[in-house]
């Protein structure tokens, strides 16, 4: 993990570091992960720090939390450049780049109000198929609606 010397934040013992987030997207990710700050988790959010790859980037460090596959899909949709570092005993034990899966389940809400996935009282999971990675485009498997660009970010389900 590329720690920046300009801003000192203590290392975490075990948990997750989300690195290489495009600058300004950290708060979106916090919201999508459902972190309200009342959970008692130690969290550091670094915004607009220098990055060799991105110019400026955001970083999130969360002590004591592992991400679910849905969490990772959601992060990939908001911050396609992000990398996930799993930390145990102050060491990176796993590191990977996020990737939008071909089928995105339960992460996005369909913008079409008459899509069956928006019908109240149905136990239905939203399901989108990735039709293009760059530019990012996904299609609702139920109603066929295509979503792209910034709209995708707005449609990621916020847990908070």
């Amino acid at each position, binding site marked *: 993990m590329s720690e920046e010397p300009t801003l000192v934040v203590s290392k975490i013992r075990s948990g997750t570091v989300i690195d290489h987030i495009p600058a300004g997207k950290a708060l979106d990710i916090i919201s999508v992960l459902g972190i309200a700050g009342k959970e008692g988790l130690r969290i550091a959010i670094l915004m607009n720090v220098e990055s060799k790859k991105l110019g400026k980037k955001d970083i999130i460090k969360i002590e004591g939390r592992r991400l679910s596959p849905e969490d990772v899909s959601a992060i990939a949709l908001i911050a396609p450049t992000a990398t996930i570092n799993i930390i145990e005993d102050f060491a990176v034990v796993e590191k990977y780049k996020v990737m939008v899966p071909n089928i995105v389940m339960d992460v996005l809400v369909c913008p*079409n109000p*008459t899509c*069956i996935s*928006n019908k109240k*009282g*149905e*136990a239905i999971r939203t399901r989108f198929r990735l039709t293009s990675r760059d530019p990012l485009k996904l299609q609702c498997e*139920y*109603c066929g609606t*295509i979503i792209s660009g910034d709209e995708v970010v707005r449609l990621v389900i916020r847990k908070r």
Partner: protein
Amino acid sequence: MKETTFYHHDVLSMLDFRREDLELLFNYTEEMHKYTNTKLSLLLGKVVSLAFFEPSTRTRLSFEVAAKRLGADVISITGEESLSISKGESLADTIRMLDTYSDLIVIRHRYEGAARYAAEIAEHPVINAGDGKQHHPTQAMIDLYTIKKLFGTIDGLSYGVLGDLRYGRASTSFIYGLTLFKPKKLYLISPESLRVREEVLQVLKERGIVFEEKRSLGEVIGELDVLYVIRIQKERIPDPMEYEKVRGSYKVTLDLLKYAKKELKILHPLPKVDEIDERIDNTPYAAYFIQAKYGVSVRMALLALVLGAEP
């Protein structure tokens, strides 16, 4: 014979089928024509559920007659009943109930994707008889069969699809159906605000269909072999103001037809409102009453194929 694409499969979208599948369906339909006045026993002992959560007369009756001609029993949920169900019970629960009573479920619903959702829940095959603005595959099967009968082919013709292409499910399924064949040219003619949806354009591009969007019928009428017309889908336009703006914005008139090929055939899934001058009804251009007549035979063929009965 049971090993067809149709056997025990859901019928949700035209995009799930290939050209060969439709050709097989058309052959079956020819067989069924012979029996449209008799009662067959091909589906004796089978129960077909008609779950029409959205008001419908034409399509529901057509399915009912088709199922009964084949000897099946029919149970149905219509209008009032669907209303009382929709108050308390989820669609999923209703589908589970119908699934225990029947061998096949025909569903119409105002939500897009309702048929796919029902198919995920039901063990038995589900036929989509219209889901919101999205699909109406059995109508498209009838439309394409009608063209085959009238012209002897579906390939090589120039098509115009006129009307509310944004909210029209019959037009969407017709357009998807054409992509299984080789149309010479396809014109999509609509007011700006009722343009065909992005996902439909996407399919046309992917499948290499030669098409063009137009704003008025007058520009292309002389080129067309088939003109497919649909009404404005008032019930699906969310904003009444938007409806007022487009009301009466297109109409096929006798005047316009002066510029048409004499072989031109006009199709319409019915009911029509005011988008075709009624004086056209008695001209050789009008093919919509023939089209309506084929409805039962095509649906008989489809039910037989899905349930695996040979004519």
